[in-house]
């Protein structure tokens, strides 16, 4: 609910500002109106919250959630202090052991404490970006190839259409089993749980990118294709000079869609597979069932929504940066 308000109110204001000539009027519309919207939302929220009784107490209102933001930050700084103490103890222990046992190669091990909320936000971001980038490196070349060749398109299309609507939760068990069967290193570079989430994200955000890229490439202006034919550009040059620039807007539309999907998928995957990240945070709090749990979950919901919104904005800026045709960039 909150995330739609955040993402929904801003673009509307943005659009309006472009059409409104008067500076003052636009300032009201870009700043005051969204602000008022948020304020009304907070009021509605806090009124509604007071009237919802759950078995864990009242539904958290804005004040309770704000308190939890503070508590989560306190936990984070306490955890950092504990971490410093942990390394200090470890150094002392290593030094002592080297005295007793000179052949010992001292090694500093990573802090074993629990990730804090802030750590988990970063874990989720890293996972989603890795999964998304992996998907992009597969999907964009594949999309270009299918866009260029009608035959390939008809061959791949049924597969894409079937896999596109599959929920991440259906992929997850398969991914988990395959990863644990294939990835058997004694000293793994990255955790299995990270790979599970990452591949699930990849599988789900592959398809919008493939489809959009293919559509973009297939829809290139015939004139451009003819120019390439006249110049007798070799295939790679053709892709580089004609196809890519011409289909960038569509490719980026696909990427934006995919990133949105990826972020939603990741939270669900983390929740179900107990992989570190925001999804696990939400699940753990639900399981804890303490009187603060709902407020902490609500805090996580706001953060998830806000990050989703920022990711979308970032992609939009990127799209603007690389598009030759600025007008084609939609909000």
């Amino acid at each position, binding site marked *: 609910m909150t995330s739609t308000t955040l993402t929904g109110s801003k673009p509307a204001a943005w659009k309006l500002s472009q059409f409104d000539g008067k500076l003052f009027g636009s300032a009201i519309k870009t700043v005051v109106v969204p602000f008022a919207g948020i304020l009304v939302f907070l009021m509605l929220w806090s009124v509604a919250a007071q009237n919802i009784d759950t*078995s*864990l107490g009242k539904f958290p209102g804005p004040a309770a959630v704000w308190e939890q933001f503070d508590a989560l930050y306190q936990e984070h700084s306490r955890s950092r202090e504990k971490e410093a103490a942990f390394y200090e*103890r*470890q150094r002392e*222990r290593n030094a002592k*052991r080297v005295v007793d*046992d000179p052949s*010992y190669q001292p090694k500093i*091990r990573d802090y*074993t404490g*629990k990730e804090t909320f802030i750590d988990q936000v970063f874990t989720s971001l890293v996972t989603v970006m890795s999964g998304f980038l992996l998907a992009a490196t597969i999907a964009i070349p594949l999309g270009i190839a299918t866009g260029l060749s009608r035959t390939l398109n008809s061959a791949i299309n049924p597969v894409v259409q079937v896999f596109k609507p599959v929920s991440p939760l259906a992929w997850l068990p398969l991914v988990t089993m395959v990863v*644990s069967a294939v990835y058997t290193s004694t000293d793994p570079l990255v955790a*299995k749980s990270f790979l599970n989430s990452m591949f699930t994200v990849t599988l789900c955000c592959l398809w919008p990118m493939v489809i959009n890229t293919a559509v973009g490439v297939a829809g290139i202006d015939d004139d451009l294709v003819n120019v390439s034919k006249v110049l007798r550009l070799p295939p790679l040059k053709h892709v580089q000079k004609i196809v890519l620039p011409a289909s960038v807007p569509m490719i980026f539309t696909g990427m934006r869609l995919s990133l949105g999907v990826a972020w939603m998928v990741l939270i669900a995957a983390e929740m179900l597979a*107990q992989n570190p990240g925001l999804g696990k945070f939400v*699940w*753990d*709090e639900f*399981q*804890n*069932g*303490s*009187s603060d*749990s709902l407020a*902490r979950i609500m805090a996580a919901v706001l953060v998830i929504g806000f990050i989703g919104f920022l990711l979308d904005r970032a992609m939009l800026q990127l799209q603007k940066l690389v598009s030759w045709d600025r007008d084609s960039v939609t909000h």
Partner: protein
Amino acid sequence: MKWTQVFRRAALMLGLAGAVGLHSTQAVSSELGYPEKEELTFGFIKLTDMAPIAIAYEKGFFEDEGLYVTIEAQANWKVLLDGVIDGRLDGAHMLAGQPIAATMGFGTKADIITPFSMDLNGNGITVSNEIWEQMKPNIPKMKNGLPVHPIKADALKPVVEKYKADGKPFNMGMVFPVSTHNYELRYWLAAGGIHPGYYAPHKGDISGQIDADALLSVTPPPQMPATLEAGTIYGYCVGEPWNQQAVFKNIGVPVVTDYEIWKDNPEKVFGITRAFAKKYPNTTVRITRALIRAAMWLDENNNANRPEAVKILSQSNYVGADYDVIANSMTGTFEYEKGDKRAVPDFNVFFRYHATYPYYSDAIWYLTQMRRWGQIPEDKSDDWYKELAAKVYRPDIYAAAAKSLIDDKLASADQFPDFDSEDGFREPQTHFIDGIVYNGHKPNDYIDKFPIGLKAGQKL
């Protein structure tokens, strides 16, 4: 210092020569080397009886052994067991039945052992408010109007019969097919004449509902209150804090604790794979040492440390429930019906009564219940029970850890069973709710004593 070491080593060599003959399985000497594997990950389920692991971490007992342990909550018992089997987890807080069933091959087959029993008691059976209202007239009252405890399932029987007559299934939740909770709930129900149903794995029926009056199914512990509230189940058997949570949330009433079903019953164990223990013998003993110290800390000075332990457990990365909810059972009281708080000083026992020693007889009790309810479909000899128990329960590792703690002056010998004479069988146990006596040496005789349950020669 050097001299004492030389002396100790020489003494050990002599002792070892004798010991090898007795215990060919003994993997370690008590001259403890550095751990072979230092970075470990342990799994747990959000229950108060995971406390020894949390305490060993927070109080630095793991680090004292040179172990760097990460502790991770798991979604359910199946995920946890799979984690230990596939190596994602090095060890875990397990249901006592899990290593036994895994070694036997009921469910996933894997060689899991346990050198350390984590606690005694700690579970309860809770029914929804609706069922409680219907049970109440059947329960004798004390002078002050409160119900007489222990409440037997006899009071529930008419309710179950009414549901049955109306054609409504009487559903109850337990946490895992081989969990203590499953056997305790079955024991309690059967003692009151309610049939909890048989398993027939040889026919592919692992639902455990053949001939059942009450239908039992699996729900992960932290979800029990929510499932009860949703009306999917009418009651459940689970560890703490999920019975007290039902009281706090006003959604159900705990009717009986497992302490009343079987006084001082063995509960969770610490499970690792046999391969792990073989590959990392020093690490295994050091883990056991740290856990023993944690258990001692938890019971020290008549539970003086419990409030601190509750504070640690209420952290969101451990059990995470409210302090008050956890404190209710951990500090020696138990709240039944709202306001009916009674003293149960031994509700959670972590160290007293040799709680941490892995008794063969404890393992055999679980096996008898597996046979009683058909999870073991055929008759087995008494020796089979003993051999399987000895495969899974490893008092040799426990003894090595305990002895080295005594050597290091971190514990005294009188806190442990006498390792020279201990045969791993508790004296015949009498404190069951139905008065039936359990003798671990004679599992087959024991099974035949139950009015409800499979008996010698019976096969579904």
